[in-house]
């Protein structure tokens, strides 16, 4: 008799194993349907948001007494891998940062258009360069709270001493004007500690409009990366390093993590607006901000921007609450950012909350951020595409290659990577 139970026991074990291994995708509720009773929203966020996150959690929970927000801190460098793995296992958090557009393309993220309308989230004054990242195929998948932007910071005292006018906060210099200004601001010395570099030169993918090297549809590199204006741009930038008007890689390595603009060893630097202004204020530097230089006269100003792109994963068991939370981030979260001293993504909120205060530098930062315009879409992280450019820039500086040779060499390699990225994108 006892043998009869064996198949049943075996089947039960199999069923348990199958249940344990299966994706839990059937628990999600229909869009727009609010959960009954107590709800816990799982958030996976980066470390280092010690002021903003507790306020955000407290504020949202106060408005939604049935919701508890559970925050899990994930190191930034492993964030994408963890989300990818969780998505593959069917167990992502309810809410996370939308750092990979492929999650949106694969239908793993909920569109937010309905909640943006119902919660009256005003996105008209968002930094449009950053916000363009949240759009795909006419839908909006994420909202943000802070405004990260790349701009040119400069030391006003050094400009005064050199008798040079301050860079405009609304009209960018051309690369030639920038290089000439940097040369005038440079004070040479045999001792690195006494050297003052006038400017900063580097590969442009992280600070300049991608349109100088990619076509508007993001599919073409060859012929644009190695066209005459871009060759000239790289020629000028490499010459700045060679001539000692910009620090070299060795100089940066020598000084380690030191911000040379803060220590008064650079007159102009291209950097981000989150950490630089507080550091300059703390050091007592009289500083200003301007848009980064452009390739040639007549080019529109460019402000590379980003935010904390919050989105809700489609497998969330509480989609309505998750979307409401993101709407809260996109509206009230911007005010909380301003209270925490960060520039909010919504520039109107920055003005209403008097983020500028009595700082002329902050006023210029806000002016620069208002110049931001949507970028072009690329199907892959730029840093997975531009490695040939980094290599070749070093070789131009070393004099091993001319800018023409280097960009002619980098263009087909980048085109191949780009083609592959598009192929992968279209397979999603």
């Amino acid at each position: 008799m006892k043998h009869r139970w064996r198949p049943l026991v075996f089947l039960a074990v199999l069923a348990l194993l199958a249940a344990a291994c299966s994706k839990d995708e059937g628990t999600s509720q229909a869009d727009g349907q609010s959960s009954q009773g107590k709800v816990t929203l799982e958030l996976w966020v980066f470390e280092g948001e010690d002021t903003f996150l507790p306020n955000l959690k407290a504020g949202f929970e106060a408005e939604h007494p049935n919701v508890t927000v559970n925050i899990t801190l994930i190191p930034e460098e492993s964030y994408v891998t963890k989300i990818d793995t969780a998505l593959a296992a069917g167990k992502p958090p309810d809410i996370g940062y939308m750092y990979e557009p492929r999650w949106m393309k694969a239908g793993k993220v909920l569109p937010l258009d309905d909640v943006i309308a119902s919660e009256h989230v005003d996105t008209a004054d968002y930094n449009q360069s950053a916000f363009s990242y949240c759009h795909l195929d006419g839908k909006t998948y994420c909202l943000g709270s802070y405004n990260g932007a790349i701009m040119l910071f400069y030391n006003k005292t050094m400009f005064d001493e050199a008798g040079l006018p301050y860079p405009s906060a609304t009209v960018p210099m051309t690369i030639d004007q920038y290089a000439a200004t940097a040369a005038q601001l440079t004070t040479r010395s045999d001792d690195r500690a006494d050297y003052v570099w006038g400017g900063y030169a580097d590969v442009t993918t992280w600070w300049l409009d991608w349109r100088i090297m990619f076509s508007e549809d993001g599919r073409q590199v060859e012929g644009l990366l190695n066209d005459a204006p871009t060759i000239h741009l790289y020629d000028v930038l490499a010459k700045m390093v060679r001539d000692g008007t910009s620090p070299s890689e060795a100089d940066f390595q020598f000084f380690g993590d030191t911000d040379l603009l803060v220590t008064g060893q650079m007159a102009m630097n291209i950097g981000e607006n989150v950490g630089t202004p507080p550091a300059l204020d703390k050091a007592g530097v009289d500083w200003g901000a301007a848009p980064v230089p452009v390739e040639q006269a007549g080019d529109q100003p460019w402000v590379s921007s980003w935010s904390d792109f919050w989105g809700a994963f489609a497998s969330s068991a509480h989609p309505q609450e998750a979307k409401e939370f993101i709407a809260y981030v996109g509206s009230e979260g911007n005010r909380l950012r301003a209270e925490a001293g960060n520039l909010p993504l919504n520039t109107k909120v920055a003005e209403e909350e008097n983020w500028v205060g009595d700082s002329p530098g902050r006023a210029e930062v806000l002016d620069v951020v208002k110049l931001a315009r949507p970028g072009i879409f690329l199907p892959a992280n730029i840093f997975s595409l531009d490695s040939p450019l980094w290599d070749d820039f070093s070789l131009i500086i070393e004099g091993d290659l001319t800018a023409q040779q280097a960009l002619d060499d980098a263009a087909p390699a980048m085109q191949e990577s780009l083609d592959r990225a598009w192929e992968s994108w279209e397979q999603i």
Partner: protein
Amino acid sequence: MAGDRGVDVNLEDLGAVGTAEPPAMAELQKTRRRRRGRRPPKGRIAKKEQRAGFLFASPWLLGTVLFVLGPILASVLLSATNWNLLTSAKWVGLENYRDMIQDRNFYQSIKVTLFYTMLAVPLYQVAGLLLALLLNQRVRGMYLFRTILFLPSVLSGVAVAALWVSLLNPDLGAVNQVLRSIGIDDPPRWLASPSWAIPAVVLMGLWGVGGGAIIYLAGLQNIPPSLYAAARIDGAGTWQTFWQITFPLLTPTLLFTLLIGLIGAFQVFDTAFVLGGSRGGTRGSLLFYVLNIWNEGFRNGRFGYASALAWVLVVAAAVVIVLIFVTSSRWVYYESES
């Protein structure tokens, strides 16, 4: 007399000895075959013991099936699909393998890996052997020397690589500062130079050569001292002793270290990642094959293509290893063969 599990057979009874099988021998073979083919009847205790055996082994068996064989088989299937983790895998047959023909990173990674292998494996073999010969001397404090020389090989590869990044810094690194101080005004840019990056990695690897030396040392100490004594009596010099005794008797150890060295060279990842980043150093000069697999899978989200690349490596490594094994009979000397 020859015995076989209770069957005693007198060889003299087997009839004529020749090339044809004698009738008595044929009968014996049949008996053996019958015995082998027929399993002894299993009692309840034997069955229980068998079940218990499987039960005790089951965690390991289950682990092997789920976490070793399963993924291996899955990667074979994956190599014939397009899969990005987010959407279900799409069957593409041999397309991933065909794509390699057009992929410049594939060729670059092969070039880098082969260059490194050809440079590093022989160098580490020779350096390890020379070091072992030194460590085999009867010198006071030898245990201390052995410990010191072995120490670097127990350090983490990542930590060692991070240390060498600063030592080999072209402008500020200690290596170039020493070279400049001895009059070399324009020393190599090491990891920043496409042509010097691999030699730099090989040079770094010498740091851990003590690990290989310990294996050679074990081999050296297994050589019977009586052979050296006999050679000395016969008037053999140091050089002759090395080539006629030491080297032949070390060839099994050499075969082992060669295989381990080759497999290690095919699998370079952590050092390359730390030294050149995931992009594979300046102009792909450190784009080792396994790093390229990682890039395709985890950076480009092409897990099918990455699996196909992995299988090409497995097959290539298997071919090389089989070739070495096949040819080893010509150059590996086992003492028992004498």
